């Protein structure tokens, strides 16, 4: 943290990125609306616009979903088509909320929202408890290694604030979460009514038996996990900074955002995939050199030796380097309408490198239809929203970590060469605890 970040404006606040999941009827839009409204993040002109549009539609009460459904087609159809990002803040923390639609395209949207989330709020309807959609979303959140979950049991007003109902759902879900690999202390269950406002921002007097935090209280106080600060150092090189001026004639800085770990002058690093070793001479930012920098920060690294390094290379801890390989066993989340056929020649983006890739055999597919997610035999081809194991061979060797160990160097995109479209989210290894 730089010194001036706290200057003249009180205390520095941190940032929590979180996502919502849950099916439409569980009241997700109402919950998002309630969070925004009760934290005073919705301003008068936005509320007026919603009231005006609600009257135009012949409604007697304001339709709060209009606050969040930003596209013409969404308002026309009354559905949420695409992930949207919302912002709000409290005196304690800033929030970026990936507001994902709960509709048919569940996997694609949940994957997109969960990829950057440090916490996910999973909604269930207190009247229905854990349903198929809950299991699907929980499995995808586990697969994407979202570190923390909130199970928000919504509509408690509709079950008469009955503690026994809530306890049964919580117990049911705890079993599912454990089977998916979530540690017990990573899951918090909160009974809420988004409609009435119970335990969302204000504590409810109607749930005297509940002693935990409100949803907002929990979001404000949960430790921000952030990128993998404790992991070994990784930094994909984005850009080589060479001023080529008289006074900076020999300056050669490797710019990037630290993907994992920390880096400090004197650290031994290896340049991959080449394998050259050298020592960090300086870690710089535009504001000056740093004694050390941690995951998440964009820096420029200067090295002791003149080595040929370019965009796409990865600087990594020499003591604990990633594996360099051109054969990947990975889990693919297929996001596109266009199906995947084995043998497909695509492009793969990993860190800052794009390389041709051939998809070999498609292995087991994750079935989310049963009580507990299970891997079932491979289908002929993958379709939209499928999650499956696959073997890939890349043209260039890649320095990779298991996604379960380091999200940033264990993730990649598959891209369609003719259209440039993103086809799949890729996770190195098999990052779901469910046994095949």
């Amino acid at each position, binding site marked *: 943290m730089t010194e001036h970040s706290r200057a003249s404006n009180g205390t520095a*606040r941190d940032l929590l990125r979180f996502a919502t999941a849950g099916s439409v009827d569980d009241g997700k839009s109402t919950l998002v609306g309630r969070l925004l409204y009760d934290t005073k993040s919705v301003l008068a002109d936005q509320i007026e616009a919603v009231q005006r549009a609600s009257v135009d539609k012949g409604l007697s009460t304001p339709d709060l979903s209009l606050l969040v459904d*930003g*596209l013409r087609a969404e308002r026309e159809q009354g559905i949420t088509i695409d992930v949207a*990002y919302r912002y709000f803040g409290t005196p304690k923390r800033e929030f970026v909320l990936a507001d994902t639609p709960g509709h048919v395209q569940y996997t694609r949207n949940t994957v997109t929202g969960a990829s950057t989330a440090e916490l996910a709020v999973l909604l269930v309807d207190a009247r229905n408890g854990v349903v198929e959609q809950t299991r699907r979303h929980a499995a995808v959140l586990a697969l994407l290694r979202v570190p923390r979950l909130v199970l928000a049991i919504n509509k408690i007003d509709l079950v008469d604030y009955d503690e026994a109902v809530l306890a049964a759902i919580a117990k049911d879900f705890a079993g599912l979460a454990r089977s998916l*690999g979530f540690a017990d202390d990573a899951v918090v269950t909160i009974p809420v009514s988004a409609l009435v406002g119970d335990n969302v921002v204000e504590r409810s007097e109607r749930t005297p038996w509940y002693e935990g935090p409100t949803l907002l209280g929990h979001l404000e106080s949960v430790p921000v996990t952030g990128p993998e*600060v404790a992991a070994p150092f990784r930094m994909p090189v984005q850009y080589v*900074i060479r001023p080529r001026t008289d006074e900076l004639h020999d300056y050669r800085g490797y710019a990037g955002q630290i993907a994992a770990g920390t880096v400090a002058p004197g650290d031994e690093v290896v340049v991959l995939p080449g394998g050259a070793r050298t020592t960090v001479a300086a870690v710089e930012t*535009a504001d000056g050199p740093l004694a050390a920098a941690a995951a998440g920060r964009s820096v420029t690294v200067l090295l002791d030796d003149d080595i040929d390094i370019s965009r796409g290379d990865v600087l990594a801890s020499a003591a604990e380097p990633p594996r360099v390989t051109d054969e990947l066993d990975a889990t693919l989340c297929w996001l596109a309408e266009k199906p995947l056929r084995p043998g497909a020649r695509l492009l793969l983006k990993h860190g800052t490198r794009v390389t041709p890739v051939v998809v070999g055999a498609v292995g087991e597919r994750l079935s989310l239809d049963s009580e507990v997610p299970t891997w079932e035999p491979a289908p002929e081809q993958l379709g939209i929203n499928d999650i499956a194991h696959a073997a890939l061979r890349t043209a260039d060797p890649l320095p990779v970590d298991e996604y379960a160990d380091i999200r940033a160097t264990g993730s990649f995109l598959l891209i369609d060469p003719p259209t440039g479209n993103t086809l799949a989210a890729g996770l190195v290894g098999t990052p779901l605890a469910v046994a095949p």
Partner: protein
Amino acid sequence: MTATLPIAPASALDALDALESEAIHIFREVAGEFDRPVILFSGGKDSTLLVHLAVKAFAPAPVPFPLLHVDTGHNYPEVIDFRDRLVERLGLRLEVAHVQDWIDDGRLVERPDGTRNPLQTVPLLDTINEHRFDAVFGGGRRDEERARAKERIISLRDAFGRWDPRKQRPELWNLYNGRHAPGEHVRVFPISNWTELDVWRYIQREGIELPPIYFAHEREVFRRDGMWLAEGPWGGPRGNETLKKRSVRYRTVGDGSCTGAVESTATTLDEVIAEVTASRLTERGATRADDRLSEAAMEDRKREGYF
């Protein structure tokens, strides 16, 4: 076999540091993957912030992109003066597309209401084509407007400059996909995840200079559609609109015909931040007439190629 998901220790970055690092990452990705990027620059606070972040992303080397100002001709003199001083001080290249040139040679027709904000799209797209720009940075933020909340950080535009919100690529982790065909380009929004308040706090923290119109000053203004508009070449006051001297400041910089001022006494950054914190109106709701044209005004303009 049951693994336990790890819980890593707390991140070291505060909110503004995290947003700054993300924006710098986006600038460097585009510099690495595109041939001819350009930064759209209006002299407003968001594009001034963009230029500041670009300088930080490539220091001590110069910013490897030029700036492009689509000039409606309806400017506040203080803003043009600020623009020219900034370009001079940072040694940047500036392209200016004058909307007036398009009107003069008949490619555009002045609107009856005199506002030129919607007229910017054609000069913008023509200039992008002419210079073969393939990545166009803008200071758009998702908190500004609900159609913008749906916008990707790197967002593909077709050969006609159009945005199709239903065909957006999913954006995962911090792996941005900038693939595009010849003739297509992308719009890039490095400060997508910032709020108006983040922008102001960062401007204060970094000591970034802004045009003086962002701070309260005495100005001759007239009332139209509930906003205070300044006198200028865009027409006004008309009919029974009368000029009055008021202490005002601007929350956004845009075409003078549709950008309103708010009454204010905030002359320092501390006072501006206090005022923005307490405001019950969004910046666009308070001061931008063009967003009031219809329920989907922003989306419709974006579909045509506007920012």
